[in-house]
């Protein structure tokens, strides 16, 4: 945080420099002014600005405006720009007063000098290709590494001398926190001390520490913790209802990736497009969960398309911020006002992220994982699944064999067949005749009529009476129709539709439409066409076939569908008027249960928040628990086809009729029926196995890309010009040989010369070590961002990173072993005055520890920290007092590292929030660190910290029972990695003595304090002493030296 004094000083400093004599650099001196004050009306967004005059390129700025020009290079007096920025008259002045923007005298002077120097333009620095090599400047002996050479040059130019190394233990503390998020142990402090003086010498000791730290799980957890902000990771869906969701296996993948030092280009590629890699491994697919971590919506009544569009945008914005450092969100509604990205390019880029079969809302009534998903099988489950598939294949062969060998039996039957038939497997038959109140008799189940309220009227029907539906009131068949996806079944009915509904529900076993993601099965009319589906989660986990022709309106039509239990669209058949309808397969991916949602009965004409069959009529409904053969469906329609076939003389059968008779015969032929039953059994076994396996949201590309459009004003409903996937023209061309999908995009973004990706990445990691990036706006490498303080260093680091094979260990080593990183943070008033923000890094940076580190430090020092890597999120004490309180864990869940803390978006862990953790609603690459009194409450009073103080105090006391000063020194060093000075010991000693006498006098207070937390009490210690030591440790825990990197 900058104090006001600093702010005022910096003002003076900067304006003092503005009049300096150095040659103008467009990107450094001019672009920020033009961009910030002029581009809004005279920038790249030509369509949406009032003026035709543009200042975003040399050509535009110097264009002839009818006898004069905005900028005449070298000629101040002829340049309109010069005139208007100095104009006294508010009507002529630019920027105009009503814009609430103005130029300082220094800025006007800079613009004048620029015009005089010929008004040179330059490509935005961040869009220039990454140079193949970057020369390292000359440096003094101070510099250990190339990084230092750049830093030294910058510092000396600014009139500063780089600092000497700080204390070695300061470096060890800093590097241990920066790389692992944990403090160095006392043992590590000691052995480093020894190693420095050992025969191997100092530099080796430093390098050895770095190598040791990079090889720990703690390192992987620390980098993961940082990446979770970027990835907007959360254990709940977000928005308003914010149900819990299952995504932590992705977080564990990130930990594995960092632990194995996965090359960063692969780290990017897997997350963007792991599913599109050839024969992807499970981890490569799992990595793509990254794109699904945006908030998701369930609120009833929301428009699914609105939110689907929002998700796609979020993916793109995250991509833009995380990898490109561009504020792409600015071009959602218009061309970018500052950077060369158009609105059309925005939608072309976003279409890369649109091609998954997803819903705009997740399911309220079920726990379905929003599609597409990945089954997270164990190796044992993989084996079981393979066995199940083998069993199914064998059963299918057995069915075929039973059919093949039934020829003789069929011929024999054909000669001697009976002329009558019975319906097998009929579960319900409602004719809608003989209505009694709100009941329609069921011819099969006399005791269980179909039910309706009085609003659905009985009207003359196809046969006798029919029911006419209001669209808001269902007809239900209690106890009928709750089929599993392995069970064959058939539904047939007569219907009469008053119009070609765009969408309407005729029949369904399903609780709701979007509110249950259509879980169940359903017969709809879509654009007037019969459409039948079995659904786990629509659209990505379902099968659907739809007739190609609409039904005629205002006439009775017979519609039936049969299903064979195969979970495939091929097993789902639609019949209209007794004949197979011409259909198209709309969805063919059903892998999980269709049961559930809370509505188990088959019902007609209505569904929760869906479009009811208003004015539609239904008659003669039959439900079977088997797949009817075509002849039977024809019989349902005309009441004579089967009978006629049975009566047809054998020698006069057409081949078609013979085949139909054979199918009907097989259905009742015992060996064939037995084989079918066995097949059903094997399918059931596999389905039950799969239903027990967890799945996680991932990316899976649709076969056909979703048509994409420019959305006018960014609105989901305002489709404009169609677009195809592509990258912005101002960036490098899309590789000619790459596919136009996310994988191609990943190849593009990780190409070795991409101007942004490597720069953005090294900048973010630089920030992790120095508190600020070389570009202090890591989220914005565009015109409105701050230009790099050390452009050559940024380029050198980026080039070196790419050349190392995107090796993070290499990058990290470059940084933490540098003299720059080792510098002492102590400085004098002059250096503070020249460089209050420490831009030139002529001293070590100070900064408060991240939220996770403050908590983990307390746990580590107390010995309470449970070192276990990965697994389900945990609920420490603080979740009990969040805005959405939850029950804290007992035992080890209280003491895991903070990266594992359960993250609920609408009420995130309050200690983390108070200590400035990111909320993780959207991609964030920077945290604002503030100092508020509420943070003092957390550290002084929060049970996690009081308990840690108590447990740590007990440890220290056992070692130093009779020596309070030694206790103090030990505690101080454990918490701060530093030796306390005598003066500090004295102050803490007086604190301890005061506390001891107070708690001795008031044993009740000591007892009360020592009750904090679940950790077992230390029965072996005198309560007053233990309480006093607890307060002592807690006081040290609150010191700046504990919570600040210095």
């Amino acid at each position, binding site marked *: *945080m900058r*104090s*006001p004094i600093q*702010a*005022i000083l*910096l*003002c003076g*400093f*900067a304006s003092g*420099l503005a009049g*300096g004599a*150095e040659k103008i650099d467009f990107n*450094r001196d001019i672009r*920020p002014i033009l961009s*910030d004050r002029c581009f809004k009306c005279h920038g790249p967004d030509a369509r949406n600005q009032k003026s035709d005059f543009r200042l975003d390129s040399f050509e535009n700025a110097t264009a002839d405006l009818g006898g004069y020009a905005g900028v005449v290079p070298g000629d101040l007096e002829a340049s309109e720009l010069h005139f208007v920025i100095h104009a006294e008259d508010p009507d002529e002045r630019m920027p105009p007063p009503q814009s609430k*923007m*103005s*130029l300082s005298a220094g800025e006007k002077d800079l613009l004048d000098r620029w015009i005089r120097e010929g008004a040179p333009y330059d490509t935005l620095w961040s869009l220039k290709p990454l140079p193949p090599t970057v020369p390292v400047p000359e440096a003094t002996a101070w510099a250990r590494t190339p990084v230092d050479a750049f830093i030294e040059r910058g510092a000396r*130019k600014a*009139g500063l001398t780089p600092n000497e190394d700080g204390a070695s233990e300061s470096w060890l503390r800093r590097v241990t926190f920066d790389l692992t998020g944990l403090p160095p142990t006392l043992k590590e402090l000691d052995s480093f001390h020894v190693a420095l003086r050992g025969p191997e010498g100092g530099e080796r000791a430093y390098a050895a520490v770095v190598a040791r730290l990079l090889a720990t799980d703690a390192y992987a957890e620390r980098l993961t913790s940082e990446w979770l902000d970027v990835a907007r990771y959360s254990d709940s869906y*977000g928005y308003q209802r914010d149900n819990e969701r299952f995504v932590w296996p992705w977080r564990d993948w990130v930990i594995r990736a960092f632990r194995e030092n996965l090359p960063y280009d692969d780290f990017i590629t897997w997350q963007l497009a792991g599913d599109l890699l050839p024969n992807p491994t499970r981890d490569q697919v799992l990595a793509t969960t990254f794109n699904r971590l945006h908030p998701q*919506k369930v*609120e*009833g*009544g*929301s428009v699914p398309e609105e939110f689907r569009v929002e998700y796609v945008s979020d993916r793109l914005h995250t991509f833009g911020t995380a990898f490109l450092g561009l504020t792409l969100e600015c071009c959602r509604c218009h061309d970018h006002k500052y950077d060369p990205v158009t609105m059309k390019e925005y939608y072309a880029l976003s279409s890369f992220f649109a091609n998954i079969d997803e819903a705009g809302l997740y399911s309220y009534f079920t726990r379905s994982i929003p599609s597409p998903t990945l089954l997270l099988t164990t190796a044992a489950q993989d084996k079981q699944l393979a066995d199940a598939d083998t069993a199914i294949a064998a059963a299918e062969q057995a069915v075929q064999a039973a059919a093949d060998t039934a020829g003789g039996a069929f011929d024999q039957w054909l000669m001697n067949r009976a002329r009558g038939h019975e319906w097998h497997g009929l579960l319900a038959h409602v004719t809608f005749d003989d209505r009694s109140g709100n009941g329609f008799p069921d011819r099969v189940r006399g005791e269980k009529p179909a039910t309706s309220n009085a609003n659905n009227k009985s009207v003359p029907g196809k046969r006798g009476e029919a029911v006419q539906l209001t669209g808001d009131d269902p007809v239900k068949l209690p106890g009928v129709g709750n089929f599993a996806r392995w069970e064959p079944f058939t539904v047939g009915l007569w219907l009469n539709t008053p119009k070609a509904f765009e969408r309407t529900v005729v029949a369904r076993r399903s609780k709701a439409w979007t509110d249950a993601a259509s879980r169940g099965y359903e017969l709809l009319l879509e654009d007037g066409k019969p459409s039948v589906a079995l659904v786990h989660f629509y659209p990505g986990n379902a099968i659907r076939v739809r007739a190609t022709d609409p039904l005629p309106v205002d006439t009775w039509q017979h519609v039936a569908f049969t299903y064979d239990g195969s979970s495939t669209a091929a097993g789902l058949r639609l019949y209209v008027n007794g004949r197979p309808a011409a259909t198209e397969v709309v969805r063919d991916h059903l892998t999980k249960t269709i049961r559930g949602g809370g509505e188990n009965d088959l019902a007609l004409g209505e569904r929760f*928040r869906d479009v009811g069959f208003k004015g539609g009529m239904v008659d003669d409904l039959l439900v079977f628990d088997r797949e009817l053969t075509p002849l039977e469906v024809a019989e349902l329609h005309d009441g004579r086809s089967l009978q006629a076939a049975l009566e047809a003389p054998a020698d006069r059968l057409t081949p078609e009729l013979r085949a139909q008779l054979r199918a009907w015969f097989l259905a009742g032929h015992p060996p064939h029926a037995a084989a079918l039953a066995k097949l059903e059994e094997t399918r059931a076994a596999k389905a039950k196995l799969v239903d027990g396996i967890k799945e996680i949201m991932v990316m899976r590309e649709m076969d056909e890309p979703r048509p994409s459009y420019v959305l006018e004003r960014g609105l989901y409903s305002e489709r404009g010009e169609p677009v195809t996937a592509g990258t912005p023209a101002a960036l490098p061309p899309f590789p000619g040989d790459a596919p136009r999908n996310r994988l191609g995009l990943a190849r593009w973004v990780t190409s070795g010369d991409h101007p942004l990706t490597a720069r953005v990445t090294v900048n973010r990691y630089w920030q992790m070590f120095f508190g600020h990036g070389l570009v202090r706006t890591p989220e*914005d490498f*565009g015109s*409105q961002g*701050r230009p790099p303080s050390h452009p050559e260093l940024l380029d050198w680091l980026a080039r070196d990173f790419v050349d190392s094979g995107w090796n993070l260990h290499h990058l990290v080593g470059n940084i933490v072993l540098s003299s720059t990183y080792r510098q002492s943070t*102590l*400085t004098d008033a002059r250096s*503070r005055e020249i460089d209050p923000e420490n*831009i030139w890094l002529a001293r070590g940076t100070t900064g408060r520890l991240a939220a996770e580190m403050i908590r983990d430090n307390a746990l580590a020092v107390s010995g309470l920290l449970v070192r276990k890597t990965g697994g389900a999120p945990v609920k420490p004490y603080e979740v009990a007092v969040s*805005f959405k309180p939850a029950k804290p864990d007992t035992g080890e869940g209280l003491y895991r590292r903070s990266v594992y803390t359960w993250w609920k*978006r609408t009420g*995130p862990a309050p200690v983390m929030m108070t200590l400035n953790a990111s909320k993780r609603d959207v991609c964030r690459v920077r945290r*604002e660190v503030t*100092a*508020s*009194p*509420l943070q003092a*409450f957390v550290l002084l*009073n*929060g049970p996690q910290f009081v308990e840690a103080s108590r447990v740590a105090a007990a440890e220290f006391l056992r070692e130093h029972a009779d020596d309070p000063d030694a206790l103090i020194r030990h505690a101080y060093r454990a918490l701060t990695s530093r030796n306390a000075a005598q*003066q*500090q010991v004295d*102050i803490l000693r*007086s604190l301890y003595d*005061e*506390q001891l006498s107070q708690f001795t006098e008031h044993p009740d207070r000591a007892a*009360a*304090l020592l009750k*904090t937390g679940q950790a077992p009490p230390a029965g072996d210690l005198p309560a007053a002493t233990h309480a006093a030591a607890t*307060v002592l440790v807690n*006081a040290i825990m*609150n*010191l700046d*030296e504990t919570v600040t990197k210095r």
Partner: protein
Amino acid sequence: MNHRAPSTPPCTGFDSPLGLSRRQALKSFGMGLGSIALADMLSAAEGGGRHAESGIEAPPVKAKRVIFLFQAGAPSQIDLFDHKPQLIKDHGKELPDSIRKGQRLTAMSGNQASLPLVGTPFKFAPHGDSGAWISDLLPHTAKIADDLCVVKSMFTEAINHGPGVTFMQTGSQFPGRPSIGAWLDYGLGSLNSDLPSFVVMVTKGKGGQPLVSRLWGSGFLPGKHDGVRFRADKDAVLYLNSPEGIDRANRRRVLDKIRELHQLQLEATGDPALETRIAQYEMAFNMQRSIPDVTDLSDEPESTFALYGEDARKPGTYAHHALLARRLAERDVRFIQLYHQGWDHHGNLPGGIRKQCKETDQASAALVTDLKQRGMLDDTLVIWGGEFGRTNYCQGKLTATSFGRDHHPRCFTIWMAGGGTRPGTSHGATDDYSYNVVDGGVHIHDFHATLLHLLGIDHERLTYKYQGRHFRLTDVHGHIVKPILA
């Protein structure tokens, strides 16, 4: 010193939203330079430190503080304030297409086969000298009619609660923007030195549409501008109380030592961040007293509870929070935000709305009366309202005794009192069916612009640069609603 820092210097030419320099701002809060760190922490005009050079006058400050009585879930304007005899006459008829004009409905009633109009079953009468029409659901509010400025022509684009509340509180339907209170804290800083400047209280135990903590979040502003939620708990703010066994005197002793140690370090390093840290702990100590001082009602006379109702004694109730709001306002907390959930009456509206009104009516009116009696209404802006309105047609089944109303973004009613608003007025009008605004429409952006205006802020100048763009509470919209200004 001939090398220019490649950062955007703070003197960018952007004017402080108040037209105040930071130094002036500090002075006006009565803090000398000695307490600068403290002032900085309290965010005394973070936007300051920039010189006002355009000479544009900032609007005069009418309201020093705001109490926003947010009725979450969207109360029915038709049954409370927007009296529509024609609608009552057409009760049971289908919503005419000439009124609906094909506008989008929520997916809850949008697929309903029939949309019958519902006139209010509640009695309306004109109240006060101003003759404001208020239904008998709000007898107490009716008594303060002449203090109210009722806006009947509010409208929004949001049709669902999440986006709707987010819009009302942050000026955007989607998450990520700072809330009103955070903007004010950023723009104006704190008026007090020992309480947060943005306090939030949510009625306890109310079901209904969930709220989310980002509604009082700072968005992309620094986290210190987050609203601080007061909980109906022994710790009114997170971990406010010292642990069992540590009394106030002992806490002071410990903090004295911590300060001594920080002082030592300040001398050793010269790092001004240490001053901030010292102030941070001093303020924490003060807040440990000042917050209980607000929440302890033992000094309130019986007449207070007669005014606010007996509920005001029960922590967590709306009435209790209304009373706390007055106590916070007395201590110059800048923005006090109440949330009362439960207005989402999709079904059984008559029963539901009666209960909601009973919980809120008396205390809302009492707060206005109380502030007026104390001479604080002039510079305290009280706002009552929800995120959108409700439909004139029935959701679900219309029966003789019951009905429901769906979400309706096209019009809704809020009221304001004090803080420079014009008392005893009604602004704007809807059509005969309370469906469309026909006069004086006030968009949410306009409401925000007006609110900021009353606080002495030009809404176009209160900006924060994030991701390269100068963001405003009012985005790129917003007009001050002049007719409602006193």
